[in-house]
């Protein structure tokens, strides 16, 4: 169940004054069951890239494979792909339109042509997955808080039961509680149901906490593609392209420069605390011995 991009190029408005190469020679693979992150400065091509993953945008050249099949093949079931690779856009709550939350979530599976019973079963399940309580099901989406609206919108995608879930900045504009709720929920889906997740985010702290792999985009190209700790080693280069490593990375690097033997790959508070504790523990032991 993997998505693979081979030498993908994308040019906006080719042949006009606004012609712009948004993606250049992208070769990437998102393997089954991985929780991957995509980071990059605004305009780096992140959003254009993810729209290739479910065939919403067609590459100017190059190929995209889903489970080994070329999605640009003439008879490829594109509609099918879109329900298997669910894409949650930025500010998805702007797309809520039904009279109540439950009907809105039903919209996707209904369009898949499923029987009413199945549609409702899925909608119910999806709303549970995002942790939205039953008392909100019959409310107008406009009566919900920002975080709740966003969860309702994500449920609309989950109700299609996708194999891959792509989220474009799902926490933008939310408060810390709303942010943690949504990301924890997504992590749970990933762990319990093995759903493949691609998370686009500006927050290095969030990325470091949740993902197994980071793709760094810069000017339409893949700049880094590795495990988080490996990517954050390049924190100086990240800064040059308008990004940064998590704050703790800077702490660990600075401690190392002052001669303390701590793990410079720690990118979360828990990891850093453990490493510093063990350094001071060993230091005591050496002193005593």
């Amino acid at each position: 169940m993997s998505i693979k991009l081979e030498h993908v190029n994308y040019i906006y408005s080719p042949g006009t004054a606004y012609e712009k190469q948004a993606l250049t020679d992208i070769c990437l693979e998102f393997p089954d069951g991985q929780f991957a992150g995509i980071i990059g400065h605004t305009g780096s091509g992140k959003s254009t890239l993810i729209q290739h993953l479910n065939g919403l945008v067609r590459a100017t050249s190059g190929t995209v494979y889903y489970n080994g099949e070329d999605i640009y093949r003439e008879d490829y079931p594109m509609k099918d792909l879109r329900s298997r690779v669910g894409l949650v856009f930025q500010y998805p709550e702007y797309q809520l339109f039904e009279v109540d939350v439950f009907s809105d979530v039903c919209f996707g599976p209904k369009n898949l042509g499923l029987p009413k019973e199945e549609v409702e079963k899925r909608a119910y399940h999806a709303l549970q997955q995002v942790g939205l309580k039953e008392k909100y099901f019959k409310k107008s989406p406009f009566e919900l808080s920002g975080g709740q609206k966003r969860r309702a919108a994500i449920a609309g995608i989950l109700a299609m039961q996708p194999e891959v879930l792509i989220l474009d900045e799902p926490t933008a504009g939310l408060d810390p509680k709303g942010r943690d709720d949504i990301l924890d929920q997504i992590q749970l889906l990933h762990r319990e149901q093995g759903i493949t997740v691609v998370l686009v985010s500006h927050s290095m702290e969030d990325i470091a906490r949740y993902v197994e792999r980071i793709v760094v985009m810069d000017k339409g190209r893949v700049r880094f593609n590795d495990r988080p700790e490996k990517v954050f080693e390049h924190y100086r280069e990240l800064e040059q392209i308008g990004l940064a490593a998590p704050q703790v990375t800077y702490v660990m690097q600075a401690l190392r420069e002052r001669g303390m033997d701590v793990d410079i790959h720690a990118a979360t508070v828990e990891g850093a605390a453990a490493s510093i504790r063990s350094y001071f523990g060993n230091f005591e032991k050496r002193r005593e011995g």
Partner: protein
Amino acid sequence: MSIIQAKKLIHDYQKIGEDGKTEVSSRAVDGVDLDIAPGQFIAILGHNGSGKSTLAKHINAILLPTHGTVYVDGMDTKDAEKLEDIRRTAGMVFQNPDNQIIGTVVDEDVAFGPENMGVPTPEILSRVESSLKSVGMWEYRDHSPNRLSGGQKQRVAIAGVVAMEPKCIVLDEPTAMLDPMGRKEVIRAAQKLNREKQVTILLITHYMEEVIEADHVIVMDQGKILMQGTPREVFSRVEELKEHRLDVPQVTMLAYELKKSGLPLPDGILTVQELVDALDAARAQRGSAE
């Protein structure tokens, strides 16, 4: 004299209930007292629904108190005759840059405010120039706002407020929709206005890195002020902040965790440099403790 003062401010929102008839009221701000001296940089933190924005909207009389009083530069916001003066004194910048720009060219947009105030044309021109320069957008004066980045649009929105020469600017989550670069641009612009023109700034935000440089931090919860003080004072109270599921800067959290496990660190560490220095000192202390 204080520039903004709130006395036992209460605000209730009225809503039509489930049956479509009776009015239900919900209390958004619940007895807030504020006293802000001119020239300060104030950060306001709190969850969505904690009453931050409702409070902010009282400062330029978009909302009026249900009970209590708000004074802006000595003027009672309930005094309808002072409305224009109040709005000139306290300008406001909102979250979404796309909702705040009306001009088709950047300099026209910035001129809109002073034009409406009846400022003479030569004066408008000089105000547009100086306010665009103060946010670093002068080179974009003849651009269309449509083609600017989010951070640039927000800076144009700030310039539009600055052109009205307010004594105070309230920024309600101005960076929530921006990327890290855009966020920095906007915060720098606000800091510069504060330092160079002594404009009082009230910044509502969820981002910790924008809070640590403020003079004073106010934390709101359920319509009340939960805590306030310098950033160091507020972020020394990690337990309480966590209890309310509010963020603390990552380094503050790390220092807190280390201190809990017995390392001798001071409370309220706010920057990478402070933590690294404190750990260095802790090492030296242990090394020589024999």
